[in-house]
């Protein structure tokens, strides 16, 4: 097959308009009331004196050998829908009307199997009088259905083998799968255009196919066989559909006679089956052609359908809505569904294992909770909701700590704190949430801190809280008056500060001596040489309590370096400092102690502490210390007053020892 020539209209624009129309159709129950739909059809008016042909591929639409760019969701879905229907060519031969486009989309919306079984979209377009659109479908079924019905009937088991009456021939056509167009042509042709005979053939054929329609009516012998064949031919659609569509292809006068006939028998047998196929709007169109009696029958029928004792035709008919609503649902549903059910057998594994898998996954609530939090942290972008999420997450962490599940709390914490995907804004919200958590639930962490088993894990957890949390604890400590609470806070800060020292260092310069002292105490308990350069300046702090705490902190951290400060502190103006220095020097086992004390013994700046230095050297008792004292004690003549003083204290110490 060759592509018909394409002229004038821009194919991209035309297909885009068709795609927009499809998009609107998909969304709205009544697309023709939508401006977007009307505009889309209006755009197709460029085709009023030209035609255009599209070639439909698996994931492409071409025109004149050029593949079209598909830029909208609607065109993409339309191209796929065309492909699903196995449409090979779509030809718009002139500007379609709004109704024609709607009809075309109606057909596209039909299940593809159903459409093919109904003779294909092309045949349906023709039958529906849509002259502006032509389609060519691939596939064996449509080829078969393109044959004249007589040929098909010849292949059918339903062939009665004789001509029969006019009505029985119509019935056989329908049972054999003829299209509505073919049936209508046959009825009209055989009746020679006589509207009365046309109606009669139609009604008789219906009663033959549906014998219950007129109990006791004489049947053509071939009809039961036909009917039986129909019922066992899964690909043949219900004849009532063909009758309904044929009805609208008959002359209006014949339609009104058929309607009159069926309305007058509507309570008998299956006459209502045909009537139920018509929507109120369709019936309303016929009302000008009905005589008064039939009109009254129609109104009575409408009252019955909508269950209303009153109402005019204008009020009632719009409420009659059986046929079009169920258009998609026609056809033997069982066959289609079964086919698809069988098809899905290949899509997945056995269902038997699902229960076990479900049970396992549901039971893993911790994992599920973590996954949920992780997903939400990534998905949620609204600041207020993210804050709420952080609150909820913090509550979970707190709950886990309270329950003693510190490892789980750490895992939960890391979902956010170690996520590389969090924006700076989200990260700030997380930090703030952790500060709030520490602020509100510090007692919970304190309880955990006092359980030796949890201490290490708590360190990891609180360390993970980050610097803002440590900062908050320090601030809290600085204003806390209750001693017990201060101890709790210090305990927590010892843990947090090991990974976040800066907030503690910041408090070394606080105005209040006790704040500085607490910070120094925390640093001392945390330990580590990195603290030494930060602590040493505090040896010169104006408050003696800070100095003492600093000496205490420094001594275990850097024993050798601290010796110098301890010895120097022996001469501090405050006796408490001096006492502390003595005690700390006594307790020290640093090898530097001896040399420092020996040097200090004759250092002029250490005059006030000479006695203590000598005492300490004596207590040290090392050969060098003892000989140093002895040497200076033996000196007969010394020029320096400092050395003379040293000789004095050495003699006192040695003499006392002797």
């Amino acid at each position, binding site marked *: 097959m060759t592509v018909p020539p394409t002229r004038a209209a821009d194919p991209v624009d035309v297909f885009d308009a068709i795609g927009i129309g499809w998009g*609107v159709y*998909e*969304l*709205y129950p009544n697309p023709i009331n*939508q401006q977007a739909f009307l505009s889309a059809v209006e755009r197709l008016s460029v085709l009023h004196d030209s035609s255009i042909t599209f070639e439909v591929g698996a994931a492409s639409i071409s025109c004149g050998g050029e593949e079209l760019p598909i830029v909208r969701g609607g065109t993409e879905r339309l191209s*796929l*829908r065309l492909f*699903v229907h196995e449409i090979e060519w779509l030809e718009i031969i002139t500007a379609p009307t709004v109704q024609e486009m709607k009809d075309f989309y109606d057909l596209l919306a039909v299940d593809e199997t159903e459409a093919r079984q109904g003779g294909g979209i092309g045949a349906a377009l023709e039958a529906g009088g849509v002259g502006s659109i032509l389609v060519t479908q691939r596939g064996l079924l449509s080829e078969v259905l393109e044959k004249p019905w007589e040929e098909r009937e010849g292949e059918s088991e339903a062939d009665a083998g004789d001509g029969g009456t006019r009505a029985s021939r119509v019935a056989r056509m329908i049972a054999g799968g003829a299209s509505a167009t073919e049936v209508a042509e046959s009825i009209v042709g055989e009746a020679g255009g006589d509207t009365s005979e046309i109606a009669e053939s139609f009604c008789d054929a219906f009663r033959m196919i549906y014998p*219950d329609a007129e109990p006791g009516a004489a049947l053509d012998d071939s009809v039961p066989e036909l009917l039986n064949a129909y*019922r*066992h031919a899964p690909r043949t659609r*219900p004849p009532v559909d063909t009758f309904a569509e044929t009805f609208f292809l008959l002359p209006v006068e014949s339609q009104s006679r058929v309607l009159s006939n069926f309305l007058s028998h*509507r309570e008998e*047998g*299956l006459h*209502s089956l045909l009537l139920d196929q018509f929507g109120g709007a369709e019936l309303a169109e016929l009302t000008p052609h009905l005589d008064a009696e039939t009109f009254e029958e129609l109104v009575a029928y409408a009252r*019955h359908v909508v*269950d209303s004792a009153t109402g005019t035709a204008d009020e009632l008919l719009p409420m009659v*809505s*059986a046929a079009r*609503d*169920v258009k*998609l*649902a026609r056809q*033997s*549903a*069982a066959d*289609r*569904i079964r086919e*698809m*059910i*069988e*098809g*899905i*057998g*290949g*899509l*997945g594994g*056995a*269902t*038997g294992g*699902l229960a076990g*898998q*479900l049970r396992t*996954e*549901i039971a893993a*609530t911790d994992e*599920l909770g973590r*996954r*949920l*939090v992780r*997903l*939400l942290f*990534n*998905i949620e972008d*609204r600041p207020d*909701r993210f804050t*709420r999420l952080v609150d*909820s997450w913090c*509550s979970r962490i707190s709950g886990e700590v309270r329950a003693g599940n510190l490892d789980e709390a750490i895992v939960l914490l890391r979902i956010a704190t170690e996520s590389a995907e969090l924006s700076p804004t989200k990260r700030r919200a997380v930090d703030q949430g952790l500060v709030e958590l520490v602020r509100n639930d510090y007692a919970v962490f304190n309880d955990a801190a006092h359980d030796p088993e949890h201490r290490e894990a708590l360190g990891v957890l609180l360390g993970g809280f980050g610097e803002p949390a440590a900062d908050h604890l320090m601030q809290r400590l600085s204003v806390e008056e209750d001693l017990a609470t201060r101890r709790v806070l210090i305990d927590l800060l010892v843990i947090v500060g090991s990974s976040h020292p800066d907030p503690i260092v910041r408090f070394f310069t606080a105005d209040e001596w006790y704040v500085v002292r607490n910070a120094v105490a925390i640093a001392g308990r945390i330990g580590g040489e990195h603290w030494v350069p930060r602590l040493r300046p505090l040896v010169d702090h104006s408050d003696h309590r800070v100095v003492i705490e600093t000496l205490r902190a420094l001594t275990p951290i850097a024993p050798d370096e601290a010796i110098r400060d301890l010895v120097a502190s022996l001469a501090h103006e405050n006796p408490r400092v001096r006492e502390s220095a003595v005690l700390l020097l006594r307790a020290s086992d640093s090898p530097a102690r001896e040399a420092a004390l020996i040097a200090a013994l004759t250092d002029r700046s250490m005059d006030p502490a000479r006695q203590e230095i000598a005492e300490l050297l004596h207590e040290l008792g090392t050969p060098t210390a003892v000989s140093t004292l002895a040497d200076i004690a033996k000196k007969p003549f010394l020029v320096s007053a400092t050395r003379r003083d040293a000789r004095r204290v050495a003699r006192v110490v040695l003499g006392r020892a002797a």
Partner: protein
Amino acid sequence: MMEAKVQEFLKTLQAAVSQLNLYPAHHPNSETALRRGWKATTELAAQDDDVVIGLKGYAFFLNGELLAYTSLTYANLYQDLSDREIEAITLAGETDRTDYANLVEFAAGHTDDLPGGGSIRLNESRLVDGDDDSAFADLRFSYSGVVGTLRTLDHRIAREGSFEMAPVMQAVEELIDQSLDASGAALLLSTVKSHDEYTFYHSVNTCLMAVATGQYLGLTQKDLIPIGAGAMLHDIGKVAVSPKTLNHPGRLDREQWKEITIHPQEGAQAIMAAGGPGHEVAATIALEHHARFDGLGYPRLGPDGHPHLASRLVAVSDVYDAVTTRRSYRRAETPHRALQILLQGAGGAFDPDIVRAFISMMGIFPPGSVLRLLSGELVVISHHQSDSPDLHGFLVRTAAGEDVEPEPVAVPEHQVGQQVLAESVGIEPAALLERAGVAEQVLASSLPKVDEGAIERSGVDEEALKDQAARSLSSIVDRD
């Protein structure tokens, strides 16, 4: 027609009682509610005879006739009226507005003076012969209870931004208790539709079907409770979406769409904040019920993200109920069309194993399907019988279009002419359960057993199915 008027009467009465509990009697809101209620009462009372609305055994009766849907829909009001010891409301002729106001005041507990002698009289006439003692009453009551719980929950979240999980779990547990023993009836009951309170009813239906699927797969009650809770709460985040957007009849603009797509995470967070046992599963389901099996949908779960199996299970029931319900922006589809949509989405939007299990359980014609036989009669499919290949249901309308007392039938599949929309032919499938004899028969049925051999490969083009699903599904179900 009368039942509709009674529903309007009860709906407006419920609204008036609520308003009176929130605002003073002369507040414009109260006055509006009273005016509407009085109007509905007047319309109901416009009969030749007195109208008696009876209350007994968790059911409403109109002049002695059981009101199936009304009982289901207004269980909360029933409870309120029962608490006030109201057993019958008689509307005697033209209704006086003051009498109506007195009724509302009494029902709201603002006064203990029982109105009597006027145009509205309480407990004067019974006309109720017996309780709704149908075997199905317990399940119906549980259903109503869950709807009531959701209603309360919705108000509470809207007002306070949070809710408690315990009542939800209790309601779900009760519903599951009832439905496990009556799975066939539960599936039929899940066809109940409400257009006014779509989300609540949709949630309970989704819950019933998800639980039935789980039960079909072999899960125990303990496993089913968190799944049921998730199914029930899956749309709870819609409280954050404006009703205008939810019911917008046309295409959504960018902002509206954004608003809609936020509801899963909104719901998940609300459930997370509520906490309690099983909340992880429930929140996960709420978060992921629009996330597709193939990783698309919303919210996006990340490059390697797939919805949790429980979410995949609920998603199938969710879509089935949504598709079969009329919405302001699209028509309802028949059950078989819904199954087609699920099948088309298998492997794309939906977990194929779950779809397979769901359809195996529901059958080709799910409970609630309305079928027109080739011979013209209308039959409602009520349940399946694993020992019979025929379709089991009740004949409700003759070929001549005459409604009849439901009559049990077993229909061979080849006699099915077409499937029709229940609402288009004025049939409410779940109402069948209230008919004598129907409930017993449906309750006696059970879910079929999983038969791995029943569904075999047939060579249908899987890729074509998936393609179709990927392209056509979103416009159908993403908004629900």
